């Protein structure tokens, strides 16, 4: 029973969106939209579980004085203060909440995003080392594309770099990407069929009854 009910639900709810994909009638799409909304409601129920886990994990760290315990204090204080102002005044209204979001959360997010530029540089350095013929082709293609995206490239080549760069992006690059996408789509379809038919059960925690 512990397996049969989830598998039956998976079969019905998995098959219904496929049916709705081909049948546009308002009665069918209404139920499909309702299923999408139900997912949001289920996710809302799961969020407190996550929050409880955050509190439990960090309080346990504090009790044990585990490595990095001061970070847990910062996290728990941040969680409590933001939740307090969010609950009493709403997330987009209360001036204290807004101040913390604009002056603390937002700059921290931007900082993490900005780190990407340095990571791209170090990853590119490793990828572009011309160790073999494939890496050399990659290096040359990358140089052309990069030069094609800046005015300097066109300036030194008399305007030839941008069309060449566009050609690399829209022909060989797009062809390779489409190959991966077609393969991935077939893989997703195959996995979906396995899940809908109840053949693939590992996501439920086990492959057996």
């Amino acid at each position, binding site marked *: 029973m512990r397996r049969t009910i989830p598998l039956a639900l998976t079969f019905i709810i998995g098959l219904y969106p496929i049916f709705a994909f081909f049948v*546009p009638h308002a009665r069918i799409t209404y139920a499909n939209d309702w299923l999408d909304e139900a997912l949001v409601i289920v996710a809302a129920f799961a969020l407190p579980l996550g929050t409880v886990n955050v509190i439990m994990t960090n309080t346990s760290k504090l009790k044990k004085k585990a490595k990095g315990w001061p970070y847990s204090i910062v996290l728990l204080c941040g969680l409590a203060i933001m939740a307090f102002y969010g609950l009493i005044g709403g997330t987009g209204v209360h001036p204290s909440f807004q101040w913390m979001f604009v002056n603390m959360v937002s700059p921290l997010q931007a900082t993490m995003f900005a780190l990407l530029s340095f990571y791209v540089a170090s*990853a590119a350095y490793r990828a572009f080392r011309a160790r073999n013929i494939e890496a050399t082709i990659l290096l040359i293609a990358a140089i052309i594309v990069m030069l094609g995206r800046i005015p300097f490239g066109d300036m030194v080549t008399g305007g030839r770099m941008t069309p060449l760069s566009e050609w690399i992006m829209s*022909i060989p690059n797009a062809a390779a990407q489409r190959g991966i996408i077609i393969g991935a789509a077939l893989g*997703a379809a195959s996995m979906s069929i396995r899940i809908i038919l109840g*053949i693939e059960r*590992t996501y439920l*925690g086990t*492959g057996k009854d």
Partner: protein
Amino acid sequence: MKRPLLFVLAAVSLFLASQILSPPVFAQEIQGLRVHDTPGDGGESVTLEWEGGPSAFVTIMRSESRGGPFEEVGSTFGADGLYQDYVEAGIAYYYQISYQLGDEGYLTAQVGPAVARSNWFRSYRVNALILACLMFGLVIFYINAAKRGKDLYIRRIAGISAIDEAVGRATEMGKKIMYIPGIMSISDIQTIASLSILSHVAKQTAIYGADIEVPNKDPLTYTAARETVKQAYMEAGRPDQFREDMVTYITYDQFAYAAAVSGKMVRERPATNFLIGYFFAESLILAETGQSTGAIQIAGTAAPTQLPFFVTTCDYTLMGEELYAASAYLSREPILLGSIKAQDIAKAIIIITVAVGLVEYFFGSSVIKDFLVSR
């Protein structure tokens, strides 16, 4: 073999470029304006079609009664010859188009009535239906073949074969394994595929006595991952070794999650990092941090925009379809392998169809090309 193939591809590219660069010729005046219920929709629109039209924007005018008054409801490029107007179902509508040719203004004769109605089949998706039926049929056929004991050859996938090796390495080093299941919810098929691999990894860690940590960004994925790991430890006969802090919830914010997991990688220096699931911009932050700590890294995603980052920073990468094949490959169950075989056959059919379509296109016909267009 590779060089002639490259020449063929270059020739095909040049031909297609010449086709695209040929300037289209448009008639000027709008002729044959007609309006009808949009076929295959849920009764939310009517479609206007015409021939000719200026190479400029035209104004679409609508009225609920014959003779007007007409009011402007939208505009479109005149030479497109097509406009879809979103309306209320069951009401009759009349249309006119006004446009400019030089300094002179034109107004077409009114057409209608057209009534939007709910349809029972999206006729334009018949191609998708055929392909879906073909895929279903192939999967069922090969699963039955596997059940009958037919030997199915599946090529070796290096990234999947390295999973057990990576778990063994962490055990030998006495360090933990970090498994990141992407940042999407359980509704994403890549997350489900990731949880299937997590089940295998957790079982291995339970058998070897290694430590695993699964930090989560999505609350639904967190609850599913916790159950998956718990069940894997029970199946391995080591339920006592499972701890609640093995699967943790971090935050719903993308970059706060990336910062927290990167921090853990730097402080705790796991021996092995698995980055399997759907990732966005945080993929490179996580993979590059893991790389800097010297961990062996196995990544897997079907997001083509993130694949280059994983390929450059990880030791093994499961690309696209390999991610979905992993659970079947790891279990070695014939029934699951049957569906992988069906996937390969479907891919071969698509390759042949595209190749035939290309040849057909060279000869001036576009039947296959039109059939493959998705809407």
